[in-house]
């Protein structure tokens, strides 16, 4: 059975290690925060200038001057700090943020990512995505394996305008967990419960590398 959004978020939460500073993109990545085990201490960075981001506020706590990069009201936790956008992207560009989790429309087998623009549709802008993907040491992409019409989104080459080159390290989809190999190709690490390697192969246009037995995702 393919993972739902929460399943993808739960699986990505397993990649989070103690002591990490993490930037979470909008959508599924935001959900990841809910599934990080209690004993794992991390700090969330929001690129509009907040480190140590907490959960959404209660009604009483709502503060128009405290939002995340998705423009949602948030809170901060003990040990938080607030800074300018220049400092925030200095942090990102300078590789102080250890892990970036974001969504994608397409990923290519050499790790290129497209997630900001669809030709013919209104262009909203890249926001901080190009900075994040160009800078992060470790990028995990949360995405659906195929588009709604069944086309693979894990491609030989991206067809949509690129956000960044050779930057994605790992992908968690509804069907599988995959690693992008330095020499190119998606190496299959885990498959969703009940999903066969053949199904994943059929859903992957780019080169899929399958070595030995592929375990099921445990969440």
């Amino acid at each position: 059975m393919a993972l739902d959004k929460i399943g993808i978020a739960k699986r990505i939460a397993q990649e989070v290690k103690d002591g990490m500073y993490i930037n979470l993109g909008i959508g599924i990545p935001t959900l990841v925060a809910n599934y990080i085990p209690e004993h794992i201490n991390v700090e969330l960075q929001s690129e509009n200038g907040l480190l140590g981001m907490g959960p959404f506020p209660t009604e009483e706590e709502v503060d128009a001057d405290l939002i995340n990069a998705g423009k949602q009201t948030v809170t901060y936790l003990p040990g938080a700090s607030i800074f300018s956008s220049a400092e925030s992207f200095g942090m990102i560009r300078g590789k102080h943020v250890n892990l970036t989790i974001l969504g994608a429309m397409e990923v290519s087998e050499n790790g290129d990512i497209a997630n900001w623009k669809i030709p013919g549709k209104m262009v909203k802008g890249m926001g901080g995505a190009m900075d994040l993907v160009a800078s992060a040491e470790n990028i995990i992409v949360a995405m659906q394996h195929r588009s709604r019409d069944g086309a693979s989104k894990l491609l030989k080459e991206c067809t949509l305008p690129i956000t960044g080159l050779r930057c994605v390290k790992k992908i968690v989809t509804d069907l599988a967990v995959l690693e992008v190999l330095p020499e190119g190709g998606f190496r299959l690490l885990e498959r969703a419960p009940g999903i066969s390697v053949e199904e994943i192969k059929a859903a992957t246009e780019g080169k899929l590398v399958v070595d030995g037995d592929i375990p099921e995702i445990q969440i």
Partner: protein
Amino acid sequence: MINKVVQNADEAIRDIQDGAVLMLGGFGLCGIPENSIAALLKKGTKGLTCISNNAGVDDFGIGLLLQTRQVKKMISSYVGENAEFERQLLSGELEVELIPQGTLAERIRAGGAGIPAFFTPAGVGTEVAEGKETREFNGKVYLMELGLRADFSLVKAWKGDTAGNLIYKGTARNFNPMMAAAGKITIAEVEELVPAGELDPNMIHTPGIYVQRIFQGSNYEKRIEQRTVRG
């Protein structure tokens, strides 16, 4: 101590001419110069180039200036919450230049700090790189980006003093500090204006040297785009 206090937004923006290049602080609707935008609306200044991370919403922030067609060009990283914006863009009434958010922040910081150009990895291999010089450092490719300045910067702070020193609150800080430094004339509106000497010099976010005019704003609406609460 140099006194920079003006009475209100109308006085502060009095000499912003048609065609001026403005920087406006804020991320979404958080930390935007509400009073100065309202005064621009009233003054009717046209042909503005607005450098701002976002373009407001239909009926608030820079969106108000779009409704009245006062904006000729937006330079932003993300402009997606605005139907009128979309209409003007598609009809060719409005020019838009999209810049990665970190590059925008750093270009403004560079402009204020006298750095004419710098290198960044953001945008390499994308359409943002078109026409730009690339260069390799330690085996990684970077784009050269230029510093940005503005005729006027309109910033919003929480507290300010008569010497122009500013303190921001929460994530309303965002682009305001760099824009304050990058404006040839910087106009700061604050929620509370205090006499010089009341703010701790160690805790100033924007030193007064960057601010030419300051006033205490009024009627802050501080609209929230995504009011999200937990159960």
